[in-house]
């Protein structure tokens, strides 16, 4: 297993290189450039050309790419062209916020998603089932900002329990985390319900009941582990989405994170910002996917064997 992990970590290097090349090309061929943002309404050909010269945008594609990768080895992410702030210092402050909100909301998503999914599956076609279904549908059909603003309205302004926006102590993080989690709960609940329904009718569940286990133990010790595979993959993917930070949560709660920084970077064609953010996201993302694969192997021995096979070529 350790060999498998090392192999996957080694594979991350080509992935990151691939991301750098792809994203750089996307930036290079996308219309517009940072000069128009800096100059704004007083855009004139000469001043724009001068700025492109200083930013090195006129150099050929390969030279720019090469220079960027060369700087990368010196861990110099460069400065933002628009705000002049060094990208690495910016990321150092923003990444922990995004990761904190992201991981906390994934925990809540997982807990409530699985809870709702199990309740719906166990009481199939009863009122709990349809209630969970409607709740789940609400989650996917109304946008993030609707729930975020609703939470702010109810808990921050009407009940005045929590601060509505901004940063500070832990209580500032409660609303954003819940708002961020609501979206994910829907998909996870439905996925859990579907895979639980597949397991509910299996013989070993009747066997477990015959052993004298209580209903709750049967569900959590026997049914759930077997239903976890698609659930785990969904959680993994949702965590990947969270890494990019949620622009909606960051704007509504004024919590500057990677999401807002990346989107403004893309809009301003701020190469250094976009490249740095994407590299960090792809590294964190590959780690998450590796974690999910390992968790899957841990949960399901049938997959674990396939992993051991992987080490020595394609086993039957």
């Amino acid at each position, binding site marked *: 297993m350790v060999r498998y992990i090392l192999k996957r970590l080694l594979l991350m290097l080509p992935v990151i290189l691939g991301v750098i090349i792809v994203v750089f090309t996307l930036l290079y061929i996308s219309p517009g450039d940072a000069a128009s943002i800096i100059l704004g309404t007083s855009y004139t050909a000469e001043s724009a050309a001068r700025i492109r010269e200083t930013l090195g945008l006129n150099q050929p594609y390969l030279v720019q790419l090469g220079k960027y990768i060369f700087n990368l080895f010196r861990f110099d992410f460069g400065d933002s062209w628009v705000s002049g702030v060094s990208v690495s210092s910016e990321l150092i402050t923003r990444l922990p916020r995004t990761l904190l909100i992201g991981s906390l909301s994934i925990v809540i998503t997982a807990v409530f998603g699985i809870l709702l999914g199990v309740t719906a599956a166990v009481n199939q076609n009863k009122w709990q089932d349809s209630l969970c279904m409607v709740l789940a549908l609400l989650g996917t059909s109304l*946008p993030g900002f609707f729930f975020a603003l609703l939470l702010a309205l109810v808990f921050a302004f009407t009940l005045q329990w929590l601060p509505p926006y901004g940063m500070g102590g832990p209580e500032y993080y409660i609303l954003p985390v819940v708002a961020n989690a609501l979206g994910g709960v829907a998909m996870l609940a439905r996925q859990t319900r*579907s895979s639980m329904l597949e397991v509910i009718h299996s013989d070993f569940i009747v066997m477990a009941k015959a052993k004298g286990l209580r209903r709750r133990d049967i569900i959590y010790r026997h049914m759930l582990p077997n239903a976890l595979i698609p659930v785990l993959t969904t959680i993994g993917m949702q965590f990947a989405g969270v890494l990019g930070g949620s622009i909606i949560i960051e704007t509504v709660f004024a919590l500057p994170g990677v999401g807002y920084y990346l989107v403004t970077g893309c809009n301003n064609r701020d190469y250094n910002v*976009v490249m740095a953010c994407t590299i960090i996201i792809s590294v964190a993302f590959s780690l998450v996917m590796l974690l999910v694969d390992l968790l899957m192997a841990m949960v399901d021995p049938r997959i674990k064997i396939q992993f051991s096979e992987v080490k020595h070529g394609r086993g039957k």
Partner: protein
Amino acid sequence: MPELSMGIVSEPAWKKQNLFVEVIKRLSLNKSAMAGMIIFIFVLLIAIFGDMLAPQDYAAINPSEANQFPSSEHWFGTDNMGRDLLSRVLSGCKWSVLIGVGAQLIACGGGIILGCVSGFFGGKTDQLIMRLCDIVQAIPGVLLNITLAGILGRGIPNTILALGLSGITGGTRLMRSSIMAVRKNEYLEAASAINCSNFRIITRHALPNAFAPMIVSFTMSIGSGIIGASALTYLGLGVQAPNPEWGALVTAGRNYLISAPYMTIIPGLCIMLVVLSLNLFGDGLRDALDPKLKK
């Protein structure tokens, strides 16, 4: 020689029950699946005849009637530019359904193909496809969209393509994980024992048993697809004004959540209607297709 009767009373040869008829029969038994199908057909009708049904031109502005609550004159009320929300919802329906379903078809279609291949074969191909997915998934959706908008031009096609491409990686992972769980079963080895081609094993044996998570993912992500498109619209990349696509309507109502909450809630509920109908139908389909599920 007396005719050897093995005790089985002679019955007409067991009629080859064509799978399709069987599935339809089962589906029709399932009330909620039928409800889902009817709602979806209703939505499709609105999508096709929306423009004709709309009482007023969806782009006709008259600021004097701005921000009116739903009333007898304007059933769904008016937006901040005084345009009739009912006609905007009716004529926006086709775009939303197109974006929601279109993007998901690309995402799940691509996801199934890649997911099966990487889940079933494992080893080198699996690693290659998974690492490609890592790369594509790390690309910021906004940048992908800006570039596509630059190449394909703004509007619906590039939004569908952008959402579809980023959706493929998700679909692939989901398919791969359920195929891997099913891969070790005897019936797959049995199938390869009677010399079925790999393609046939995947499509005939592995896929039907690993299909449930995909149906759930397909039906559920339509709603988030439409909302994702509206997020791009908010950033000015997705659907271009004045296209009354539901996601754009929801986003336009953002600032008026207190003074005019209906501007967000009504289109939101319409999106929910689409997602609800497809979910009910999707579940019914999955139960009908899945022999194991005893009724």
